[in-house]
């Protein structure tokens, strides 16, 4: 499974050649890296929406919820990775520990974002919607949530970019994703630096972060067509 350094050149610019030489491994790592970055954020959003609504609807829920999620966000990623198995009753090195940890981080970040986003909806708008005849559930999905979209997507961008970096950290404890490229590069550098896998890993991580960020920006524009009308 570990692709050994067979390429001749060790120049940092040789990363493309390295990629072509180990295409299938690198692509599978990129693929799992993408999934590990995206899926926890989606699950996190699905969990954070009702929790954020709860924090907005019942104000006394907000402070304890924010303290709790802040507490989760305080725990460093590598520590959370190794703490997940004993807490969830998994084996000590289980591939599931990384997505679980990332989901916890995403929930922690997004609950606050959703609650603040819903708080940014002005009271007048809510009252107007009620007066037109929206019932609470319909008002939430068709008025409050759409208006909160820009705040929520801003939070999604932060969560995604952070996740790409954190997933790479899990490569250091042996999970198979782009982080493995850094391990490979480090192990192959015992006799003089061997740059290609390290540079390739950084390039792919940054590209992945930029692409995911761009997708969320486009999503934001598609979901809030009225903002375009006001701007122009």
């Amino acid at each position: 499974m570990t692709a050994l350094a067979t390429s001749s050149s060790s120049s940092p610019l040789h990363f493309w050649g390295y990629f072509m030489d180990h295409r299938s491994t690198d692509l599978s790592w990129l693929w799992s890296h993408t999934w590990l970055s995206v899926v926890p954020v989606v699950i996190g959003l699905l969990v954070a929406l009702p929790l954020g609504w709860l924090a907005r609807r019942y104000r006394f829920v907000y402070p304890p919820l924010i303290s709790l999620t802040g507490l989760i966000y305080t725990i460093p990623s590598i520590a959370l990775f190794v703490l997940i198995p004993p807490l969830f009753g998994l084996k000590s090195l289980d591939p599931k520990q990384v997505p679980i940890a990332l989901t916890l981080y995403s929930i922690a970040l997004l609950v606050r974002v959703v609650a603040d986003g819903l708080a940014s909806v002005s009271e007048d708008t809510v009252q107007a919607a009620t007066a037109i005849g929206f019932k609470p559930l319909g008002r939430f999905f068709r008025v409050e949530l759409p208006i909160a979209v820009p705040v929520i997507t801003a939070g999604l961008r932060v969560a995604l970019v952070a996740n790409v970096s954190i997933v790479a950290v899990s490569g250091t404890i042996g999970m198979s994703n782009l982080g493995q490229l850094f391990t490979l590069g480090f192990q192959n550098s015992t006799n003089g630096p061997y740059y290609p896998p390290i540079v390739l890993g950084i390039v792919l991580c940054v590209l992945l972060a930029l692409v995911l960020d761009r997708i969320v920006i486009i999503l934001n524009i598609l979901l809030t067509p009225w903002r375009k009308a006001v701007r122009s």
Partner: protein
Amino acid sequence: MIGEVFTWLNDPGHWKDTRFDTGIATQLTAHVRFCAFALLVALIIALPLGLVIGHTGRGRWLIAAANTLRALPTVGVLVLLTVVIAPHFYGRTDTGYLIPTEIVLIVLAIPSILSNTFAGVENVDPAVRDAAEGMGMTGKQVLLKVELPCSLPLIFSGFRSATLQVIATATIASYLPLGGLGRFIYDGLAQQDFPQMIGGGVLVAGLALVADLLLYLVQRYTVSRGLTGRFSKKRIPDARLASVTQAEVAAV
């Protein structure tokens, strides 16, 4: 498993240095020292820079540039710098690993502090700034006596998140042969000694929580009560100073 972790943490032999192993106490000190040094340097660089950019409004591109640094995977940069720098150091010191780690930690801490300081100064109520100038304060006085105290809450939140990131990344530095609490995680992993690995995780999480709590306490007692609305006797509903002032002005 949780019991074994507790046993590992509770064993005094694991806390003291022995001839073969470095104890928890020493690694904890080393970890705190790396982090404190990096945070101090980052603060010295980022705080004045953020204040000046926020005050003058010039050089905003620096903020944007610093924020793009966040997209870099820290592990990758750490390994890259280590591979570049470490071979130039020989002997039994860990300088070759320490220098790249400190560089990464400083680079990591700067964006949070810089952008939050900038946002803090930028978001000071223009009326407050005008009032300060109207009282005859010079630009420097406005910055240090009005804008800095008013932006302290945001500066603190930036510094606290920088602290957490630095503690987390200093842990990963143990993946390269460097001391610190991460040693236990990676050594435990290599030796399949899971109580040690998870015990290391508990220690790192504990350090992060304690550091954040300490900074919270510092923040609580340095940020002006006029901003936080933390008054001991009189409880003002919605006690942002601005709204109180507004009410007073309206009463006149």
